[in-house]
């Protein structure tokens, strides 16, 4: 635990050393909330048919999508970027020589981003509440359970992607594009039902679809765990399937690159 905290502290110090970049990130969150608030005003009641299930308000609907996408993005791309940065800066070599399991090192590299993703999600909600989003009927236990399952599922996606980065060295733009696609098709910005049938079917295979749906129903309609059981079962399935698979892939990737000698620069 102390070692993970050391990674978090280190990443916090590095992150805040780029003061402007650190501040702009939070300003960016405020801008997107501001933008979607006015976009919601423009849309008005036009999409109500699609949004009735979630209370009929587009701003509250999209806010939860932004919260979830921002947090999940930190789980996936945060880990990828950290692994990539350590590799390219050459700092992976001394790290691999410390008495820590290599898997533990990779996990620890993602800890700070996950924490920041959590804080960013909180900031989104805070600003959303200021702009009038109504969370008064939220079921926090359901939110917590979905959040946990989503974290495990998307951390697994991040671990799998990090394994690819370890082997391929470069791939973060591809990963960024794929995750953006996952947020879009999963319904972060508008309901999946807006899409044509083939895309709706594709969305059924994405964990993001269930996370967005479950979180909206829990946050905006106060669905209990019992009412969300179908979504929770699917998410649990993703978590149970993806987590061991991602660990297996990461283990293989580490062994492969250690064998090839490419885990560090020659």
């Amino acid at each position, binding site marked *: 635990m102390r070692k993970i*905290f050391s990674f978090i502290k280190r990443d916090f110090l590095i992150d805040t050393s780029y003061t402007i970049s650190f501040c702009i990130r939070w300003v960016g969150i405020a801008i997107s909330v501001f933008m979607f608030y006015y976009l919601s005003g423009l849309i008005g009641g036009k999409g109500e048919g699609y949004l009735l299930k979630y209370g009929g308000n587009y701003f509250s609907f999209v806010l939860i999508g932004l919260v979830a996408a921002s947090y999940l993005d930190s789980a996936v791309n945060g880990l990828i970027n950290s692994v990539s940065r350590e590799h390219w800066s050459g700092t992976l070599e001394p790290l691999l020589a410390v*008495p820590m399991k290599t898997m533990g090192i990779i996990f620890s590299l993602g800890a700070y981003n996950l924490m920041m993703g959590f804080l960013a999600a909180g900031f989104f909600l805070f600003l959303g509440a200021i702009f009038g989003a109504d969370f008064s009927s939220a079921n926090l236990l359901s939110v917590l359970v979905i959040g946990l399952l989503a974290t495990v599922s998307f951390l697994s996606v991040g671990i799998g992607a990090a394994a690819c980065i370890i082997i391929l060295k470069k791939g973060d733009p591809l990963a960024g594009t794929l995750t953006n696609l996952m947020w879009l098709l999963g319904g972060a910005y508008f309901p999946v039902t807006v899409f044509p049938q083939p895309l709706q079917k594709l969305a059924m295979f994405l964990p993001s679809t269930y996370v967005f749906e479950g979180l909206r129903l829990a946050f905006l309609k106060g669905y209990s765990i019992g009412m969300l059981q179908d979504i929770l079962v699917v998410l649990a399935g993703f978590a149970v399937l993806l987590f061991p698979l991602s660990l297996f892939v990461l283990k293989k990737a580490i062994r492969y690159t250690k064998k090839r000698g490419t*885990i560090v620069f020659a």
Partner: protein
Amino acid sequence: MRNGQGPIGKELMEYPIQISHLNKNFYSKPPWCLSAIFSLPLKKIITACDGINLTIRQGKLLGLVGPNGSGKTTLIRILATIILPDSGSASINGFDVVKKGLEARRHIGLVTGENKNFYIRLTGRQNLEFYAALYNLSKAQMKEKIKYLANVFELSEYLDNMFQENSQGVRQRFALARGLLNDAPVLLLDEPTKNLDPQMAQRVRTFIREELVKKRNKTVLMASHFLEEVSDISDEIAILDRGRLKAQGTLESLRRQAGDPSADLKEIYDFFIAT
């Protein structure tokens, strides 16, 4: 050693570094890709270790010399568990570096000549504190250790500067300090005096020889291109060329092997590299 389980007797502890029939080749293409799809033969580009057998006695310093690409850094990386050998075995304090990598790493202090591998947006102190925490040092131990090492390597005035502001020489001194944070019994030093000015290089050599080896009984494997340095402080010298161990022994025994009782290391080196 039994299945990489660690020290089982006095003999093993007598030789904290043991390398047996170690082989390592580097290939030009990902083996699984090519062999799985096309069944093409792999193109071997470098033989970094070719059947290396080497032991280092406790409390001794072995200097490893050889031309560029001879396999010195690869050997050190294998011992540090950073890369895996193709075949053969190596152990640190009785722990097999492949089967018991984590345990082996507990006994290693690693200094690389690649001094860019620090976090440039942190200060030197923050860098050292980060690694000290990973070595499980308590706050008090951390503080004391950093103070001591800063004193040894004359780093006190640079501790609170952003790392990116440091010169190459200062960075190298931080690399030395980092490698010694955990007070490991086995030290793997890859060009420890690279980028250092002559006075600091001499100070580091004296510290390694007098303090680490003689006083604290550390076992040291030091790779270097500076033959004088190796000649000055090593108990034994190993000469590596294209992954093959050409010779190993004291300076005296190497002179005998080279057939010139008055030869210096440069002449001995030339003799073995030429053959």
